């Protein structure tokens, strides 16, 4: 009511300029979502139908290798060249998309599951539940970068994508759990939750129907971005020799092998690195776009 009485600010012809600005901004916003979304869609397609995409250049079989061609550069039909084993680089990079994306998604899912369960428990019930979860979170935040994952994975004999995902997920949940706890706490005091409590609904029902849907947005944004971080972490672990193992095909393994021959055959390192960097960039951009779209505080 009060606002209506305040006269328009002096700069009356502003709206036209403002409209043009928002149109431009909207276009930028649309593109900053569409471009990474397209890149990710292509990568997901690669990881689902690797044979088709690998076949676009060369013979498309990542395991059809010829040592005569070891570390050869681009050749007719093989514009991306060959790796040290004489395997087609393009085919390997395309087939490698799957493990990176699977590990990124799996580890993030595991981390989100733990974070939502513990964060909700702590945030909704408070008291000793909160104490336990907060201390546990601090313990897991206390591990120096990747140290926990390196120590555990080094003791694991067979390091499948599932094992690597599980370990990265188990060490990746604390930041998200803090976020969930915070947003659950802020939702818990709102009128409709109090109303639901007064109506005698069970704690589980209140959490699932009333609290979680209104508290999950921030963690979903963070989870999206963390997919990229997990993909980088997987490649770092693999580079250190405690991640995925051959005969698995992954960008981490290709980058590790390529970095040993970078001086003589840089293409072996560059292509998987480029794919990895683009994937991470796309994931981060999607996360930022989600944040802009979903977080009212950041939208302005």
């Amino acid at each position, binding site marked *: 009511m009060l606002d209506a009485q305040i006269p328009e600010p002096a700069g009356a012809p502003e709206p036209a300029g403002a409209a043009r600005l928002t149109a431009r901004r909207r276009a930028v916003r649309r593109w900053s979502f569409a471009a990474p979304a397209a890149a990710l869609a292509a990568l997901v397609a690669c990881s689902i139908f690797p044979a088709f995409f690998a076949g676009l250049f060369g013979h498309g079989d990542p395991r059809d290798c010829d040592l005569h061609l070891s570390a050869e550069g681009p050749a007719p039909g093989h514009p991306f060249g060959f790796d040290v084993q004489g395997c087609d680089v393009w085919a390997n990079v395309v087939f490698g998309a799957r493990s990176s994306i699977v590990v990124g998604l799996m580890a993030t899912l595991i981390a989100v599951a733990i974070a939502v369960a513990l964060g909700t428990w702590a945030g909704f019930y408070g008291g000793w539940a909160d104490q336990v979860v907060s201390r546990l979170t601090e313990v897991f935040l206390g591990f*120096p970068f990747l140290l926990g994952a390196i120590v555990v994975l080094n*003791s694991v004999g067979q390091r499948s994508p599932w094992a690597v995902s599980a370990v990265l997920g188990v060490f990746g949940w604390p930041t998200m759990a803090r976020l969930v706890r915070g947003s659950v706490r802020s939702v818990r005091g709102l009128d409709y939750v109090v109303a639901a409590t007064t109506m005698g609904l069970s704690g589980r029902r209140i959490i699932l129907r009333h609290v979680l849907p209104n508290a999950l947005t921030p963690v979903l944004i963070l989870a999206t971005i963390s997919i990229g971080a997990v993909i980088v972490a997987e490649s770092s672990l693999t580079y250190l020799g405690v991640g995925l193992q051959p005969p698995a095909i992954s960008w981490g393994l290709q980058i590790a092998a390529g970095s040993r021959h970078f001086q003589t055959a840089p293409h072996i390192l560059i292509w998987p690195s480029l794919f990895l*960097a683009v994937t991470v960039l796309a994931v981060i951009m999607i996360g930022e776009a989600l944040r802009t779209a979903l977080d009212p505080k950041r939208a302005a």
Partner: protein
Amino acid sequence: MRTAAKAVQRLAGLALVFLGVTFVIYLAVFALPGDPIRALAGDKPLEASTVAALRLKYNLDLPIWEQYWLYLGGLVKGDLGADFKGRPVLELMASRWPVTIALALTAWALEIVIGLAIGIVQALRKGTVIDHGLLALTVLASCVPVFVLGVVSQQVFGVKLDWLPVAGVRDGWPASYVLPAGVIAVFGLSAVSRLMRGAMVESLSADYVRAARARGFGPGRVVGVHALRNSLIPAATYLATDLGYLLGGTVIIEGIFNLPGVGNLLFEAIRTHEGPTVVGVSTALIVIFLITSVLVDAIHLGLDPRLRRA
């Protein structure tokens, strides 16, 4: 009185975290499959009596919690234990700390200087080509894994251009440290610049900055004192935490540039199943990490007077 109670509570929390992390590391090293004594001997089978003697010496036959208890007892006396060759872990680390500290501090300084500068320039030139260009550059750079940057910059600046040593520490500081520190700093400085830009944009439009301008202070003082100090909190928090990581988390870069630091020692120990060394070095790193987290609190108190009253 209240502050004292808070401090005690904080310290108790830290002690709990310390016990938790060291116990998890201890479990991961000694309770997971993989016999450290067998790994010690390589391919040759050890005699049963030797194995038994070693197991006894390193308390490996005791239940895991009892081993951990003995380890804690040693810690209280300032003893980090000895590796399987009998060398004290403290001694193993002693010669390696200078390398790691020099590397971490160099990287940290680069993060502070370049990261803050980029963030401030972006905030002052908000919405321009400079702002967007710097943002794109820092985001792109932070998407490339650190070891790819390491290998590539080693080839480009070390081998091709021959500006800096390729590896090792023979040329001392700064020559041997600039390249690896620069590579490590890339990720941190893009984070710092983003935090700094966001906070700075916010404070530049805040009332107290407008008030400072209205009082006639020049742009240097308004930006450098009024806006800067209040914008530093997020970046300073990140930087303090990051120093903890830098001091312990440079395993990959120390490996690539062949720097004999603590990260290198830790990683070798993990690969060779040198359990006592892994636990000892990890313990030292955790202590550093906890100290930096106290440092973060101190920085908050120093920069944000509102917290001091609460």
